[in-house]
C-alpha cells in the first residue's frame, strides 16, 4: 500500500537552515547537510530544500550543497528556489536531486515546466504555490510569488487549471496565512485543490502537532511538509508517524 509521506522542509539562507513565521523573522536552525542526513535516517520520506533567497538574489541554488546532501541522504530530494531555466534544473538533478520545485518562476515562464518535464519526466517537477486568502478571487485564494512578497493576478484555481497540463507531477500548496503558526494546515484550501486535481498534493504551512497532519491526510493530502515542529525538537518525524499510525493513517515505519 502506498504510504502518506512526511517531508521535512529545510529553508536555506546563507548556507544555513532557517525558519520564519508567515515567511518573515527567520531564526537559525542548523547545517543543511547534517540536518538532511539526520532526517533521512530518522523517518523522513523525502527532503525538501528551499534556497529561500536565491530567487530574490537572482542566483542559482547552491549546487555544491545539494551534492553534499545527496552524498549523505538516501531518500528522494527536492530542490526549490532559484531555478531560473532548464540548465539550473538539470544541474540540480545532476547534483543528486530527484525533483525540482518551481514557484516564482512558473507564472513568469510557464514553458519551463514543459521543458523540464519533457526531458526528466513529470515526476521531476513539483509546482509549488504560495497562496493567501483573498475574497476578491473567485476561489478565495490568490497566488503570490517571491517568497510570498508579491501578489500576482492569478486566482489560485485558475492558475492550477492553466499550469497543471504543462507537465506537473506533484503540487505543493503553501498557505501564507498559516505558515509557522502551528495552528493546522488550511483544510479548506486543501479540499478546494483536491477537488480540482489528480496529481499528488503536498500540504504545507501550519503544522503544529500530529493531529494537524492526520487531518490533512484524512482530507486527501498525499504528503505533509513539516518544518518548525521538527526543527525545534519538540517532536520528531518518528513521533508524528506513530501518531498517524494510531489514527489509522498508513505511513512508512521501517527505516
Amino acid at each position, binding site marked *: 500500500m*502506498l504510504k502518506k509521506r512526511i517531508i521535512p522542509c529545510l529553508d536555506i539562507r546563507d548556507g544555513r537552515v532557517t525558519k520564519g513565521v508567515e515567511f518573515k523573522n527567520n531564526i537559525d536552525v542548523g547545517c543543511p547537510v547534517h540536518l538532511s542526513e539526520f532526517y533521512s535516517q530518522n523517518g523522513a520520506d523525502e527532503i525538501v530544500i528551499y534556497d529561500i533567497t536565491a530567487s530574490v538574489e537572482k542566483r542559482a541554488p547552491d549546487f555544491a550543497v545539494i551534492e553534499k546532501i545527496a552524498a549523505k541522504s538516501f531518500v528522494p530530494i527536492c530542490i526549490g528556489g532559484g531555478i531560473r531555466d532548464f540548465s539550473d534544473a538539470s544541474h540540480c538533478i545532476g547534483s*543528486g536531486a530527484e525533483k525540482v520545485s518551481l514557484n516564482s518562476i512558473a507564472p513568469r515562464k510557464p514553458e519551463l515546466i514543459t521543458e523540464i518535464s519533457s526531458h*526528466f519526466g513529470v*515526476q521531476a517537477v513539483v509546482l509549488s504555490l504560495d497562496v493567501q486568502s483573498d475574497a476578491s478571487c473567485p476561489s478565495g485564494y490568490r497566488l503570490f510569488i517571491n517568497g510570498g512578497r508579491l501578489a500576482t493576478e492569478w486566482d489560485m484555481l485558475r492558475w492550477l487549471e492553466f499550469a497543471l497540463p504543462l507537465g506537473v507531477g506533484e503540487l505543493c500548496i503553501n498557505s501564507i496565512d498559516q505558515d509557522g503558526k502551528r495552528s493546522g494546515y488550511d483544510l479548506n484550501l486543501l479540499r478546494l485543490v483536491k477537488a480540482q486535481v489528480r*496529481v*499528488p498534493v503536498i500540504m504545507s504551512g501550519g503544522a503544529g502537532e500530529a493531529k494537524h497532519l492526520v487531518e490533512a491526510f484524512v482530507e486527501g493530502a498525499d504528503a505533509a511538509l513539516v518544518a518548525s515542529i521538527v526543527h525545534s525538537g519538540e517532536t520528531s518525524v518518528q513521533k508524528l508517524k506513530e501518531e498517524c499510525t494510531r489514527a489509522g493513517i498508513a505511513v512508512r515505519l521501517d527505516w
Partner: protein
Amino acid sequence: MKNTEMKVGILNYGAGNFGSVRRAIEALKIDPIEVSDANALKHVERLIFPGVGSAQQAMAELKRRDLVEALQGFAHSGRPLLGICVGMQVLGEWSEEGDTVCLGLLPFKVEKFQCDDPIPHMGWNSVAWSREHPSQEAATVSIAADANFYFVHSYAAFVEKDEKKSSHILGVSSYGGQDFCALVASKNIWGAQCHIEKSGRIGLRLIENFLCWEDV
C-alpha cells in the same frame, strides 16, 4: 561491505540516476567503475544498470552505444547484473512504452498502469517477498517482510496468473488494484522496479545483498 576491492561497474548511458547509484555504492565503501562502453564491461565483476525515463529511450541509447549484445553477453557470462527502475524494465522481453523490444533476459513484459489512481505511481510502497524464490534468502538479509521502498514509475511488469511465467518474481507490490513485480531475480540477473538507491537504509541493504550474492 566486507569485500571493498570488488570491481563493481555502473552503466553510464546518460540515465538520470547514475549519480545517485554511484553515491549509494560509495556509501557501501566501494569505489565503483563507470562503464560507458562494451569494452569497459570486460573489466567489471558485477554491474548495476540504472535507469530513469522511458524504456524506449533507454533501449535507443543502448543501441547507439553498441551495448545491447554486450549486456546480453555479460548476463550470459554469469556475472551478476542488477537493473534499477527502467534498467529493470528493459531486462524483460518487451515494453508497451513506445512498443519497444527489450533485452530479453527475463520472461516478462512491461505495460502501463490501468487504474484510477494518479500516474506515475510515486512514493513509498511495501514489497511482499515471494517465499518460493531461490534467491529470497540471499536478497532479504536484514530486510523485514513488507519492507517499504521508494517507487516512481508509470509502467510495470504485472504479475501474471500463469505460474510458469512467474518463477523470476522475487517481490510483489500493488498499486491501483494491480499487482506488479517490485523485485525480480533469476540466478545472476536481478532487477528492482523501485529506486533502491533512494530507499534509505533498506535500499542500500538490498544493493549490498546483491553485491554479496554468490551462485551456489
